[in-house]
């Protein structure tokens, strides 16, 4: 949050552009341009609802966001903080090269505005260590970077008696980049990291109303994967509010992932048929196997390359290693379980960070719990489960087909 809330309006107007530092794209070799283009696309998408108009450009290995009009600084930073692939957001002042004198004045004003003006970091009188990090990309500039560091450092020391140089562990870095224009920036607001969504294909998230699955979707999306989702509802046992809750969760996740196609499957008839035909303590595990089968079917139809679940070992009866093996067995697509080794508290913390927790804890029954046995199997025997499923042979294919035909698709976006 550095530099966001603290600044008064005067400083907000002072910044007109941002340098975007990106995370792992830099190491992607020949595919680098693909990642950069995706990041530019995601940034543009994230900013489309922020007041103001922006240009997002990619020049010589850097991405700049420049405001073309008045804009809302805080909203802009918040939007950028939800774009995977961004490691840091640097509010920047960009100026034409009008000689060293003008540059020195600009640097002094910059330091004063950012760190010493009303609402700035440092109350006057407190000491602050700094380092100038000049970079001369335009080699015809008369001073080289060492000279720039030394000269500008001296000017800062003269202008702010409370500041001291520390080249090893400075409190603040003052970046001065000499390009076509001259860019000044100091603060780096951390981004979410990861890779731009859309650079690693698409996967299908099994989204329930719980705490875990939205977090699982977030984590896979963070690796650049586009997310679609499937939700199983069971009217009249689950309500429209439970469905709305899942749509709301998808919407919160879509802040990071972009638009999510949410496939809503009416699961009631399948569930009741399993209830009729199979041993009650196996109900949950067999239900989950059918959810995986249906999710895989939709995944294949929509070019998804894997399934994502919020499972974590041992959390509930259906998430023991044996249960996971039994549900895993029914599909051929890889199943990604990013939370597999997480404790509940760790998941809750992430859910709070991404903003899904408050929605997740709304108390609506979901279809997994309505008929759950008092003592569901925790160590299902796959052979026995398969035998139990033989009792479904008569109608299950037809029921699954009908559920898929009656599927509702909601495109969820912010």
């Amino acid at each position, binding site marked *: 949050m550095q530099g966001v809330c603290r600044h008064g309006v005067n400083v907000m107007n002072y910044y007109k552009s941002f340098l975007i530092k990106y995370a792992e794209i830099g190491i992607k070799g020949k595919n680098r341009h693909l990642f950069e283009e995706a990041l530019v696309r995601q940034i543009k998408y994230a900013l489309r609802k922020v007041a103001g108009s922006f240009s997002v450009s990619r020049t010589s290995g850097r991405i700049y966001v420049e405001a073309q009009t008045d804009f809302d600084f805080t909203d802009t930073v918040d939007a950028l903080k939800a774009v995977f692939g961004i490691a840091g957001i640097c509010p920047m002042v960009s100026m034409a090269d009008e000689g060293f004198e003008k540059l020195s004045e600009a640097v002094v004003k910059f330091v004063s505005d950012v760190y010493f003006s009303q609402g700035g970091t440092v109350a006057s009188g407190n000491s602050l260590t700094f380092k100038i990090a000049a970079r001369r990309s335009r080699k015809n500039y008369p001073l080289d970077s060492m000279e720039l560091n030394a000269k500008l450092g001296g000017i800062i020391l003269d202008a702010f008696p409370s500041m001291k140089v520390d080249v090893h562990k400075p409190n603040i870095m003052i970046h001065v980049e000499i390009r076509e224009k001259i860019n000044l920036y100091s603060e780096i607001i951390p981004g979410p990291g990861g890779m731009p969504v859309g650079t690693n294909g698409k996967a299908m998230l099994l989204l329930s109303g719980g705490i875990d699955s939205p977090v699982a979707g977030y984590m896979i999306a963070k690796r650049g994967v586009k997310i679609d989702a499937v939700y199983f509802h069971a*009217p*009249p*046992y*689950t*309500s*429209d*509010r439970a469905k709305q809750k899942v749509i709301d969760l998808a919407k919160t996740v879509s802040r990071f992932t972009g638009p999510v196609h949410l496939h809503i499957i009416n699961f009631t008839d399948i569930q*009741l048929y399993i*209830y009729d035909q199979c041993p*009650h303590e196996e109900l949950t595990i067999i239900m989950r196997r059918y959810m995986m089968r249906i999710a895989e079917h939709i995944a294949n139809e929509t070019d998804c390359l894997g399934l994502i679940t919020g499972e974590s070992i041992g959390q509930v009866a259906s998430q023991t290693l044996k249960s996971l093996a039994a549900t895993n067995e029914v599909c051929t697509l890889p199943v990604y379980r990013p939370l597999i080794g997480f404790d509940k508290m760790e998941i809750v913390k992430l859910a709070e960070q991404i903003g899904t927790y408050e929605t997740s804890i709304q*108390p*609506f*029954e979901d279809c997994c719990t*309505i*008929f*759950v*046995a*008092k003592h569901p199997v925790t160590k299902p025997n796959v052979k026995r489960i398969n035998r139990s499923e033989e009792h479904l042979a008569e109608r299950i294919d037809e029921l699954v087909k009908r559920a898929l035909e009656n599927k509702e698709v909601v495109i969820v976006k912010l």
Partner: protein
Amino acid sequence: MEVYLDNSATTKCFPEAAELMKKVMCEDYGNPSSMHRKGIQAENYLRYAKNIIAHNLKVNEKELIFTSGGTEANNLALVGCAFANARAGRHLITTAIEHPAVGQTMNYLEQEGFRVTYLPVGKNGVINLSDLEQAINHDTILVSIMHTNNETGSLQPVIEAGLLIKKLNPQLIFHVDAVQGFCKYQIYPKRMNIDLLTVSGHKIHGPKGVGLLYADEKVKINPISFGGNQQRGLRSGTINVPGITGMAKAIEMQYPNMAGDIDKLYELKYYFSDALKRIPEVIINSPLDGNGAPHIVNASFIGIKSEVLLHALEEENIYVSAGSACSAGKTNHQSATLKAIGLNKEAIESAIRFSFSHYTTMAELNYTLQTMYDKIPMLRKYVRK
């Protein structure tokens, strides 16, 4: 067919009331406190509304305090009176089955140092007058009894209670929360020894966001919110002219001739409850005699969670309530009323409230019954083992 049987949660606004409100909002939108003509125009609506309401309730116009709804009216009545009369005593009496707008307010007053007696109810959901008589002592300053219970429709003996209270101590203040009973019954506070009466607009085919507290001019009452001193300082805030006008219109349309409507509603109620009784393992929780209001049937369908039956009916466009709509959506909530009338857990968890209005028809009830006959066997078959 769409069947709305949740009229105790809220009702459809009369089109006549809505149209009048639109005119107030879009044309005659002045602030009645303004000095210019636009303000006077708005004030005329307020005059009209006060006149209608005072005339129908047979009270004085200046005894009407307009609020944001039933909850605020109850809060103002109880908190305002308790503090204004605390020197006379610090004991309050109410019933165990009040709406939370009274129940929770009483809890608050307990925290503020008042003592509160909660009168129990019998299986029919009605208090015993001898309990009331015994509860009243020299320290008692206020008695609050609801007219019609919002969950089962049980009617409290407010007329007898009023007589008893005033016989024991004419200074005792009698408050009646009539949110569910108003406009089903003609309530004349001055003839019923009622000092404070709570009414809500949206339960009587008027708009949401408006309510009324009748307060006898002799009753001492303190404001509970502060501001521009509108409504004699008892309820500051710009006057909600459209809401008040809409509510008055709804009262005007119903109050003068309700007797026939009540008979019609009772006919529907008894027809419906008789038919429900034919379904196995159904318990009717509402009184089916003179102790029950004509528009509420509460029934438990043993073995089916209320929420499931509610959503199953919703699939066929039939809208009912599980317990009280105010508390729907919260888990682990058990209705205080249903507990107080002695229902067990199974009956409470399977309770459904059907509440009728003047729009309800026999055909709608038959459709609802048929839907339940069709669905209940299936719903009973699939339960958590």
